[in-house]
């Protein structure tokens, strides 16, 4: 028999959005309100994290980090567990560009307000520049290559405390140094009385009672790196006065669709973007050993407006590297054998928010990502690949692997014309590995229910009890790593929830 629970506020999802809302609304508990934070995944014990690539990816990422789009040309990486994808991000803490927020043109969402909130969370999360002496060779080469070309590489502030430089950020920090929501906001919320329930999957929601009614399944399957859930396994019906969806830009729209809201809100799932990316490698004649030190220190974004891409220094593990190097056979194997001498750069494209790029659901209610790599996006990735190749060579690389070149390996001695060697016609979806981890849109903020899902305060049009507080709010791609902006928007939404509850948020 289903158990019935009553709460004032239920937050669904515990990543950058949900964790922030939980902390912002925690003072409501002292005012007599019951606040629940539901997380589908487990609470991960950092002491169990090993950094073993395949095992860690299988345990912490949905579908091992390779949730495919419907046409299988892009794989999507996101975590499942308390803290959401803040478990596996690199902690790059960026203020959003004014042109993007201003371009959203949302009354009630001022750029200055977003900046103020991002600054608050940057401080709260301990975001700071990695000291120069702890920047590793892989990152230095990116900076060196940019400098040689007269390009300004900007250093990322990183939200770590006590980072030892294990380089394992993307597999979950084994030193618990990264300041994700599971380290900062959720413990703070729990200390003030917010109840955290892991292993709890919300299957659907509907209007009812004083607000909404949620159908929830709690699973008690133990997680090898996790701690057992708080509630006994079974089905629950939760009545809530306010519900905040923060399950991420894939699962939040999917949940709304499963719940039948798309009939009145046709924009649900649509205008979805993801900064499609691929990894490039440059071979050097000396060891780089990118496996020690923080993996991501610099970004070069001077061409983001004109050419729709930005580049980041990065380091990936052997299997992910093998997957991302186009092709196979002796050339691929030779490059893999040079793994310790590879410099890596991530090319990220700014994709257009289009109604046909969307999250949908299958018959079982599971999300299906109907996303296609559009010609403009491919052009941007190819331009970014050329720019990255220039940086590799300027940094001293002897050869560069460019997925959209044939042959893919460009030797320095070729003195190649990169504009001819790297070309859009050689970018074959299905041959080139493209992945994404910045999911945005699907419940975009806006003015009307015709072309948006929520107001600028995250309140779902026509449902005053229902809010969204995650990356799905973004009307367009952010053009920079999004987690801090998600936190800022979630904090902004939390104020609207507190208003509805008749109280003041933190």
């Amino acid at each position, binding site marked *: 028999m289903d158990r019935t629970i009553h709460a004032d506020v239920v937050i669904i999802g515990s990543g950058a959005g949900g964790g922030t809302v939980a902390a912002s609304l925690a003072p409501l508990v002292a005012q007599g309100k019951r606040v629940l934070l539901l997380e589908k995944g487990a609470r991960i014990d950092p002491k169990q994290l090993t*950094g*073993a*690539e*395949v095992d860690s990816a*299988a345990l912490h990422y949905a*579908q*091992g980090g*390779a949730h495919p789009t419907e*046409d*299988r*040309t892009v794989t999507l990486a996101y975590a499942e567990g308390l803290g959401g994808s803040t478990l596996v991000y690199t902690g790059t803490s960026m203020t959003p560009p004014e042109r993007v927020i201003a371009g959203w043109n949302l009354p009630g969402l001022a750029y200055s307000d977003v900046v103020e909130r991002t600054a608050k969370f940057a401080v709260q999360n301990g975001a700071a520049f990695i000291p120069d002496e*702890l920047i590793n060779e892989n990152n230095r080469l990116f900076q060196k290559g940019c400098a040689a070309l007269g390009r300004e590489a900007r250093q990322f502030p990183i939200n770590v405390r006590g*980072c*030892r*430089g*294990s*380089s*394992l950020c993307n597999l979950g920090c*084994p*030193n618990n140094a990264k300041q994700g929501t599971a380290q900062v906001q959720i413990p703070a919320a729990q200390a003030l009385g917010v109840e955290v329930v892991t292993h709890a999957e919300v299957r659907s929601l509907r209007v009812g009672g004083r607000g909404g009614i949620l159908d929830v399944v709690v699973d008690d399957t133990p997680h090898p790196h996790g701690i057992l859930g708080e509630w006994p396994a079974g089905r629950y019906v939760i009545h809530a006065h306010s519900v905040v969806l923060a399950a991420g830009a894939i699962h939040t729209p999917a949940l709304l669709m499963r719940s039948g809201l798309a009939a009145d809100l046709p924009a649900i799932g649509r205008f979805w973007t993801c900064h499609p990316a691929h990894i490039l490698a440059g071979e050097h004649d000396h*060891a780089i*050993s990118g*496996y*020690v*030190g923080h993996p991501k220190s610099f970004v070069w974004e001077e061409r983001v407006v004109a050419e729709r891409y930005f580049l980041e220094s990065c380091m990936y*593990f*052997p*299997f992910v*590297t*093998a*997957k991302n190097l186009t*092709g*196979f*056979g*002796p050339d*691929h*194997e030779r490059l*893999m*054998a040079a*793994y*310790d*001498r590879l410099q890596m750069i991530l090319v990220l494209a700014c994709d257009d928010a289009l109604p046909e790029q969307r999250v949908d659901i299958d018959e079982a209610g599971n999300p299906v990502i109907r996303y296609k790599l559009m010609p403009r996006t491919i052009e941007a990735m190819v331009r970014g690949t050329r720019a990255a190749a220039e940086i590799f060579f300027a940094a001293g690389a002897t050869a560069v692997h460019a997925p959209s070149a*044939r042959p893919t390996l460009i030797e320095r001695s070729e003195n190649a014309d990169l504009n001819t060697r790297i070309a859009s016609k050689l970018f*074959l*979806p*299905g*041959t080139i*590995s493209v992945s994404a981890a910045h999911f945005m849109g699907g419940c975009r903020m806006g003015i009307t229910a015709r072309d948006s899902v929520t107001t600028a305060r995250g309140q779902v049009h026509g449902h005053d009890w229902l809010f969204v507080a995650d990356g799905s709010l973004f009307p367009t791609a952010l053009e920079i790593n999004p987690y801090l902006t998600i936190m800022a928007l979630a904090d902004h939404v939390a104020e609207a929830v507190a208003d509805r509850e008749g109280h003041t948020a933190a």
Partner: protein
Amino acid sequence: MVTHEVLAPLARQIQPILATFVPATAPLGLAELAPVLARVDERLASEPPALQRQLRLFVRILWWLPLFTHLRTMGGLSPAQRLRVLTWLQDCPITKLRLGLWGLRTLLFLGWYGEPAVQARLGYRPNIAGWDAWNAQKAAQKQGE
């Protein structure tokens, strides 16, 4: 632990394909291939049965495909011939075939390059202690010189 075999029963057909993708695996016998395929099957265990069937069918198609061009199965081709056949598929105009090959290649890379001993041979030696371990190793090397 693998609870469900997807590709393991096709080890004989996969052997020449893997040897083309990763030439270093060419000397591996079926027994040595088993842990590679076990890692792949573990990843595939949670995939829908339809996808698992498609993948098995795709491996069988690859095995028989060279009959049309070389009058031999994939196993009967020389390494150079196999490389040509698979490279043609990689760049062929039919997206579904390209995707199938990409998927199989990626899974076999997971099986091979996901193995910690293989990763160590590539020079990938991460340590939870990060810079401390790195500096200690450098100091020990210096002392040994």
